Structures are given as C-alpha cells and as structure tokens.
C-alpha cells in the first residue's frame, strides 16, 4: 500500500489544531463555573 505523505501531513495538521481548539474550549468551559468558598461562623455570645 502506497504511503500518502501529503495526506498524513494534512491529517496531522488538522489533528493538532483540533486538539488545540478542543482543549482550550474545555478549559474555558471549566473556568465558567464560579468557585467560591463560603463559610458560616457563629457569633460569640457573652453572658453577664
């Protein structure tokens, strides 16, 4: 079977750009979740 170098190069190029686009989009999507640490603390009471 004849190896088609041009096709391999084209496919590799598209694969790299695909990985780049998919990774960056997923990262931005992940960044869209707002993370916040909220805690609750009871007030100090003084009995006197």
């Amino acid at each position, binding site marked *: 079977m004849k190896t088609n170098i041009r*096709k391999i190069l*084209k*496919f590799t190029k*598209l*694969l790299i*750009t*695909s990985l780049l*686009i*998919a990774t*960056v*989009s*997923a990262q*931005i*999507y992940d*960044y*869209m*979740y707002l993370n916040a640490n909220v805690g609750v603390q009871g007030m100090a009471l003084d009995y006197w």
Partner: protein
Amino acid sequence: MPSPLQPEFFVLVGIDLFLAMSLLTCLLDRHFAWQLPYVYQLAAGFGHLIVSREFMASFGEYMRFWYSLLYLAVALTNIVALNVYLGVIKRLMDYARIFMAAVTVPSLTLTVFFLSNYAEVAVHPLVILPQMGWEAAFVGIVAFDTLVVGLGTYVFFKPRWWYIALGAGATITIAAAYAAYKPSWGEAAFIASATTLAIACAIVLALSTYVLVKIWIETLKERKNEKEVKT
C-alpha cells in the same frame, strides 16, 4: 435547582462534533471536497468564540441555552447531511451505513440524552407548550396510532388506499366525537379503544417484522444461489 450543566456545554459538544467531522472528511477526502475539513475547523473555531465567560453577564441562561442549542443543531445537521451525501448522491451505501452506525446515531443519541438531562433540572422551561386536556390527548393518541396502523397496512399489504383512508377517518372522527360529547360510559370506552388500538399496533408491527424477515431470508437464498451458479 440550577442545572449542573452550563448551557455552553452544548456548544462544547458541537465543537467536538465539528472537529470529528473535520478529521473524518480528511480521511475520506476521495469522496468530499478538499476544503471541507478546513471549513469544519473554522466552524469549530467560531464555536470556541461563543464559549465565553463575558456572555454570562450579557445574556441570561435562557438566551445562552438557545444559541448553544442552535450551534449544536447546525453541527448535527452537517453530520446528517454528510450521511445523506454519502448514501444518496455518492451511492456509497456501505460507507453511509457505517457512518450512520458509528457517527450519526451516536451523536443524535448523546444529544438527546444530554438535552433531556438538562431539561429535567433547568431553571427555565425549555419549551412552553399549552396545557393539553385529556380529550385532546386522547384524540392525539388515537390519530397517531391510526396513522401507524394505516401506513403499516398500506406499505406491507397494498390494499386500495381509500379503504384505509375511510377506516382511519372513521376511527379519528368517532374518537373526536367521543371526546367532544363525553358520553356517560366514560372511562370504559376510553380504556377499550386504547386497548384495541394497542393490539392493532402490535399485530401490524408483528406482521411487518414477519414480512421483513421473510424478504431478508429470500434475498439471502437468492444471493447464495447466484454464488453457486457463478462457481
């Protein structure tokens, strides 16, 4: 309860589908235009622009959901179009079948799965439908079942078309009249008609399956005979 999925998730799925299509059309470049993989990459890049945190402040969740869904719908339409192109225009039925089983059906199934999941817990209703009374629902069910039975009978048994049209028309008219006048026998008639239609649907489906299996076995036999004649 807010949805655990952001609406942009659908854009993300659309981007991945466009990228997959780009690679697939590159691999099958004998059958597609050479520019097509690049067009799909551009479409994926455009989708990437839509996934932005800035839009969260500008648009509400409802709006974000609809433009995300539109993008995904465009990606899915492209998949279906490629499938049809392979099968109908290029007449590559084997390719089209494989493409349908490996790409089209899984993509559509996954989309339906994620959409139903999103719809269950979405803050806003996705589609606002008018409230249907039981009368309208009853007539709708009867009409749908009659259509399925009529179509199945016509395709497999080839009777005169107006026999079926008359039967189907009479069934739907009687159901509509029943729903409009609500006679005193009430629930019993509802249950009886629903059971009868369900049995009719089951019979037509069973007969259709039988006819299909018979045709399939005959085709296999013919192919075998042809092979034997050639050898």
